[in-house]
């Protein structure tokens, strides 16, 4: 469904993505593991069009999407939930969702948008309760849910998730991961997930990549990565204790 071929990207002179080639199949959850600054976020940004790439190609559903602007990619079905809960804080929850579904509004009109928002409220009952509140007044977990809900409003086929658990309490993290797994099962959504909480990510993922200083060094089934000694040592920590159980 998604394929990156030898993608190189720079921040100024710094070479952040070195010949990155990854693929995500339809219906899969794929995760990327790596230390801070390894190039995970940059990889997602190149896919969603926020970060320009110097060389290489990106394909989505057989179409080349290299160098396409973000709004075009959203239209094609790629939704990116970027890190740090990027929502419109001074606007109401309802307005945020409307903006997330702004393309649906353009294509199908107001009625469809309203129906879509109701569907999203079914998925996130807490957002329905808070619909008139300013998004900035929500708790961290609710803001993250709103960010994911906004992305879903665009009716994506591929969801790019950047650190959905960052700064959240373990209970909330668990809920969000359950939600992501549910989205894949119930809505046949394909997910590319970046996560500091590597164990949680590998639990719900089908496959995983390990990225080190901008280079993909390992690609494996999630189960095998969980068992891999190197990965255990570097990303899962020696302690096998579950943080939320």
């Amino acid at each position, binding site marked *: 469904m998604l394929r990156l071929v030898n993608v190189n990207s720079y921040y100024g002179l710094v070479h952040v993505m070195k010949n990155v080639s990854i693929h995500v199949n339809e219906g899969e959850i794929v995760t990327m593991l790596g230390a801070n600054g390894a190039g995970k976020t940059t990889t997602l940004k190149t896919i*969603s*069009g*926020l970060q320009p790439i110097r060389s290489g190609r990106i394909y989505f559903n057989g179409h080349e999407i290299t160098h396409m*602007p*973000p*709004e075009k990619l*959203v*239209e094609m079905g790629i*939704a*990116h939930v*970027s890190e740090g809960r*990027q*929502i*419109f*804080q*001074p*606007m109401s929850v309802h*307005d945020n969702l*409307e*903006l*997330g579904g*702004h*393309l649906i*509004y353009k294509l199908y009109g107001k009625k469809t948008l309203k129906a879509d928002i109701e569907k999203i409220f079914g998925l996130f009952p807490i957002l329905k309760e808070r619909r008139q509140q300013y998004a*900035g007044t929500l708790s961290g977990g609710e803001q993250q849910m709103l960010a994911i809900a*906004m*992305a879903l409003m*665009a009716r994506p086929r591929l969801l790019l998730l950047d650190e959905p658990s960052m700064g959240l309490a373990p209970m909330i993290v668990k809920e969000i991961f359950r939600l992501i797994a549910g989205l894949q099962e119930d809505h046949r959504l394909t997910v590319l997930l970046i996560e500091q909480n590597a164990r949680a990510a590998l639990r719900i993922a089908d496959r995983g990549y390990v990225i080190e200083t901008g280079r993909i060094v390992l690609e494996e089934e999630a189960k095998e990565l969980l068992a891999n000694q190197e990965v255990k040592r570097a990303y899962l920590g020696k302690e096998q204790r579950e943080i939320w159980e």
Partner: protein
Amino acid sequence: MSHSGLTDIIQFMVMGVQRGAIYAMVAMGFNIIYNATGIINFAQGEFVVLGGLAMVTLTMALNLSLPVAFILTVVAVTVVGILMERLTINPVGQPTVLRLIIITIAVSILLKGAAMCIWGKGSHYMHHFTDAAPIEFLGAIILPQTLWIIGILLCVVIGLVVFFNYTMIGKCIRACAINRDAARLAGINDRKMVMLSFALSAGIGAIAGIIITPIIQMDYARGALLGLKGFGAAVLGGLGNSMGAVVAGLLLGILEAFGAGYISSHYMDAMALLILLVVLFIKPSGIFGSSEAMRLKEF
């Protein structure tokens, strides 16, 4: 004496509100573009001049009816605003704030030159909107045109509030102002929103020009000073805060009128600059702006 004192005060208030309404509208124009791009559009005053001069031509030379001329003028100046964005702002490869601001200064000089070529150096007279006699209120004279100005300012303010809070396009522009990347990821074309904000600013500038021309007689060189005072109002109200701009614009106009009345009319233009300096020294975020508001950039 006490009666004439009161009359003076009312008269100055009326004059102040009338000028202030124009500053408020110029300031709103500044804010819309500032929120969308983070730059100050120094050609804002030129939009006002173009609006005024185009209106003079359409009503006085071509004898069009007032509403028709009004709409044509606003549309024409809006098109100028769109062209300005498409031809000078949009193509900039690496848009830094300084670069864009310098471009707007260049555009303002160009527009001023073009206005001089088309309309000449003289000032242009235009009829008041209605022929009704001035209204006397406790000895003070209120021109019907002043009421038009206040009414149209109100309409513009209400229109903007509705636009930014209740229409999808308005919400998209706000979204871009609040968080550009998040807006792009929501599928909003940010460059188009920048263009729309230039269109909107130009349109509001044109309206300001149209309604003030019967009173001040427009000439090609007025843009700089109108722009400067509008900028003063925008800063006074807190850059980016449109409601602040309205209050600050009116306040600036009133202070100016009282300054002219009680101190000296020679220093009238200096009043605005003096206020601007004082604000920048004491409270750079403006009277209605807080650092929080600066961050949120609420309309």
